[in-house]
């Protein structure tokens, strides 16, 4: 660079050097600002990990890993027991039941928006789903508590309306926007040349959607479902309000259950700082963190695979 400029003339060289060093400085500055801002989020994530793990690990000085995965959660008894299985099962039951509703409804809504709906209907459906995403979770919980729980209680003549089913229904509505909007992204990302080719061969729109668009979007749709699942597992407030919160292992949707998130939120306030119980709650947090991270990564992998396949 410098050898090249020296050959031309001195005036020119001085000009280019001064202006290029200025823009060099600007570029460095710009890049520096972004680097700092970007690393803040990375540092925050690192610190969160560090402190959660630091507070969780002391539990295992007192309790074996096997008993942490045991069935009984009685942290205030003598002797106490810190088995998280009931809450893991609670989270699993509520999430699976919620997805059983949210997946078919969410995917159909996505297919409707991306493939079927004409202009106005498309905008209306999309904005309804966006509104669902914007409602605070405490409002969902309140709705479940005030309307859904009493309704279920009388319909099934239960002793309490706060059950796994109540939580699952509320959660399915909450996971719906995640699944629907990400699945819609996946469907619209399918190149329209595929659809054209299929329609030009005398396939109907319906056949084209089922045999071409959905298979081509499959990885992306799977990613959408997994992220919806992550949303359902991580939800706390609404579930805390309607699930009934009794730490029991059951497969019945009509019984109260406690999820991992609700377990932490319920007991955190009444636990002495630094006690075994306190460390046990952090261990639940670690568990939750690992589950959601694994889901996010799997989902991103699937979504990335779809992008690579069609736009590589």
């Amino acid at each position: 660079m410098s050898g090249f400029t020296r050959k031309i003339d001195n005036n020119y060289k001085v000009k280019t050097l001064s202006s290029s060093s200025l823009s060099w400085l600007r570029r460095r500055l710009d890049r520096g600002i972004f680097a700092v801002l970007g690393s803040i989020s990375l540092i925050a994530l690192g610190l969160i990990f560090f402190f959660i793990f630091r507070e969780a690990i002391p539990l295992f000085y007192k309790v074996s890993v096997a008993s942490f995965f045991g069935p009984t959660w009685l942290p205030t008894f003598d002797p106490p027991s810190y088995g998280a299985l009931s809450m893991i099962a609670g989270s699993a039951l509520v999430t699976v039941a919620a997805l059983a509703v949210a997946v078919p409804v969410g995917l159909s809504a996505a297919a409707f928006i991306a493939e079927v709906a004409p202009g106005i209907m498309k905008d209306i459906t999309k904005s309804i789903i966006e509104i669902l995403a914007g409602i605070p979770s405490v409002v969902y919980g309140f709705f479940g508590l005030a309307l859904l729980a009493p309704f279920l209680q009388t319909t099934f003549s239960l002793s309490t309306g706060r059950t796994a089913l109540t939580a699952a229904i509320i959660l399915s509505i909450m996971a719906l926007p995640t699944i629907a909007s990400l699945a819609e992204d996946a469907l619209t990302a399918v190149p329209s040349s595929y659809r054209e080719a299929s329609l030009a061969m005398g396939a109907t729109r319906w056949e084209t959607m089922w045999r071409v668009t959905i298979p081509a979007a499959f990885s992306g749709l799977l990613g959408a479902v997994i992220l919806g699942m992550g949303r359902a597992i991580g939800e706390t407030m609404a579930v805390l309000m309607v699930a009934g919160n009794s730490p029991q292992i059951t497969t019945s949707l009509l019984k109260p259950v406690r999820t991992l998130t609700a377990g932490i939120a319920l007991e955190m306030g009444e636990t002495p700082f630094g006690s075994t119980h306190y460390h046990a709650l952090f261990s639940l947090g670690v568990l939750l963190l690992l589950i959601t991270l694994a889901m996010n990564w799997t989902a991103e992998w699937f979504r990335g695979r779809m992008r690579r396949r069609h736009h590589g």
Partner: protein
Amino acid sequence: MVIMATETKSLQTTAEWVARNLPSETIIDVEGLNFYYGRERILHDISLSISGKGVTAIMGPSGCGKSTFLRTLNRMYELTPGARAEGRISFLGEDLFRIDSVALRREIGMVFQQPNPFPKSIYENIAYGPRVHGIRRRSQLNEIVEESLRRAALWDEVKDSLRKSAFSISGGQQQRLCIARALAVRPQVLLMDEPSSSLDPKASAQIEATARELSEELAVVIVTHNLQQAARVSDYVAVFMTGGELVEDGPTKKVFEQPEDPRVQDYLEGRFG
């Protein structure tokens, strides 16, 4: 001017090479076709008969509406909001606009500008159309796949890799795969929208040879802005001009050697478009 003359001469000789004796009953008859996109008029009062055998080339400068014309023939334009066609088109004597568009597209297949195979295996790409139209028997599907690939002159190259992804073959092979895929539903007309514009000369020549061979059994309508290609491949040409007018049509040899319209003369001599 000297260069121009030799250019025209080479076009003439290739046009002579093209001349064939093919039966020439009309399969598609277009009369007074106007096409609008919103308020804009894309095609002006087009009338053209398309022969049931042989290759008809639609040529003209870019933006003259030749692709739009092609898309009215299988009514693919209906997928574009705001597009509207007026006029009469008859397909085998029936009003083309009143035939169910799904049924129509089985009879009038299409190959696009960019090769667009499905993200499936070579076999599944070809079997797609027959499957959609209700053919389930494996042996029958196998037959159709082989026959279609042979007709598209691709069988020998892919017969050992039918299970491989359609993306694993070259661009030219992908385009011939798309031709085979369109043939698998046994159309009577094959529309080709600048099918070799994204291909190298060799692959492009293969597409042209395939088009000529196919045109002994069905009507091929090919849109191209490449004069040499039109001269080499077609039996009939229709020349469109900017503004969406059809200015001249007829046997390729005649139009290339003695164009009547001065605009076509200019266009063929490279003074325009």
